[in-house]
């Protein structure tokens, strides 16, 4: 008999039982549905050991890599410490080492942390202020850099957190952050696969991290980035990204402006006119075999996900991060 640890509970698991069976027998309520590995309702994560391969059938590769598994398919091979997907791990301390305005609205915030932290560029962490106010932000740098995390924080009109970061947070100040979460990130392995990345506004943050990560790991397939904004102030890091296109032959970048009355400005700065996802999806006809990353406005993410799928991309190759535009990301 093996033991499963979930929070403070230690649950015995018999040889013929799945993790879900054992939890239910111990009267522990977790979400579940079909019990045949199809609905993925009973998604859980192993915090110590690698789950059996058979318990990860049908999961996205990024989730597999992070030791997610389906409780109903999991017959443990050793003792396991597990958690529900939304359960938070430990909190970490970090201090502000850089604040830089990228546009009047978007701030680059760089934090240094001391404790060990595993993350992939493109995942997100929750940043927490001294009084507990917390918001999720995507990581814009790759782990190759030493113990720093970069975020692009857009000032939202009534955003308590974003206004505080822009106006009051000082160099050297302390913040707490949660472990990195989310499945929208790069994994090596299919280096020749073409990548399409579409982002709006500060949805560029995870994409910028993913691109730098892919290039650093030697991705050889074509990489196409479309970054869009309604107005000029939403486009940022343009020179840095154009620099990357000169450095890497397989990297292509299209900056897109969708607002009206900007034709002259757009032509002058060499921006494409139109919405980023329209331009991207009208240009590339067949997405079979492509890997797609979509980050930013939820409507853009949902529309593009469907369109990319219809154009042949496999659902398991589409990674998304829809930014909440309500009070969550303020």
């Amino acid at each position, binding site marked *: 008999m093996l033991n499963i640890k979930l929070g403070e509970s230690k649950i015995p698991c018999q040889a013929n039982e799945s993790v879900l069976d054992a939890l239910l027998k111990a009267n522990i309520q977790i979400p579940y549905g079909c019990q045949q590995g199809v*609905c993925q309702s009973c998604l859980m994560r192993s915090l110590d050991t690698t789950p059996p391969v058979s318990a990860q059938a049908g999961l996205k590769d990024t989730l597999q890599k992070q030791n997610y598994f389906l409780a109903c398919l999991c017959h443990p091979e050793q003792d396991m410490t597990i958690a529900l997907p939304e359960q938070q791990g430990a909190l970490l301390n970090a201090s502000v080492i850089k604040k830089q305005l990228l546009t009047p609205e978007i701030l680059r915030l760089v934090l240094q942390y001391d404790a060990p932290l595993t993350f992939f560029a493109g995942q997100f962490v929750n940043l927490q202020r001294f009084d507990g106010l917390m918001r999720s932000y995507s990581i814009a740098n790759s782990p190759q850099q030493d113990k720093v995390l970069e975020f692009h924080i857009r000032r939202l009109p009534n955003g308590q957190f974003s206004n505080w970061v822009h106006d009051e947070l000082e160099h050297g100040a302390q913040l707490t952050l949660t472990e990195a979460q989310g499945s929208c990130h790069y994994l090596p392995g299919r280096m020749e696969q073409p990548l399409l990345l579409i982002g709006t506004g500060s949805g560029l943050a995870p994409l910028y991290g993913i691109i730098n990560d892919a290039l650093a790991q030697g991705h050889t397939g074509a990489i196409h980035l479309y970054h869009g904004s309604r107005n000029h102030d939403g486009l940022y890091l343009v020179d840095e990204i154009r620099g990357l296109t000169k450095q890497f032959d397989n990297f292509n970048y299209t900056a897109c402006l969708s607002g009206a009355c900007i034709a002259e400005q757009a032509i002058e700065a060499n921006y494409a006119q139109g919405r980023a996802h329209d331009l991207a999806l009208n240009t590339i006809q067949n997405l079979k075999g492509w890997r797609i990353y979509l980050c930013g406005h939820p409507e853009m993410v949902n529309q593009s996900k469907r369109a990319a*799928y219809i154009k042949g991309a496999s659902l398991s190759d589409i990674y998304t991060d829809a930014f909440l535009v309500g009070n969550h990301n303020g």
Partner: protein
Amino acid sequence: MSETPETKSATLFEQLGGAGAVDAAVDIFYRKVLADYRINRFFDNVDMEKQAAKQKAFLTMAFGGPHNYTGEDMRKGHENLVRMGLDDSHFDAVMEHLGATLQELNVPQALIAQVAAIAESTRNDVLGR
């Protein structure tokens, strides 16, 4: 080797190729459904992964495979869509895509007919009649 009376002939699900065939079919089928302007509005606000999982469960059933679907589930699952105007024409469109998917996978006509018959048997439950 002679067949003894105990030898079972392969089930429909086995003849179609089992779970692997369902995976291949879902990929083609769901894409056809989403691209069809006659019916895609019914899928506007759904989580695509969850919907693909449901399509997989449905096709597993239509392929004669193991499933937990009941008529009551079918009714409940489509109640909202019926309220949105789901009718025979939409069911027909889905049947059309199912047939075309199987043809694309080179499934023999006789097996396609069996799958279609199982799918057809859900019509009244799906349409809440």
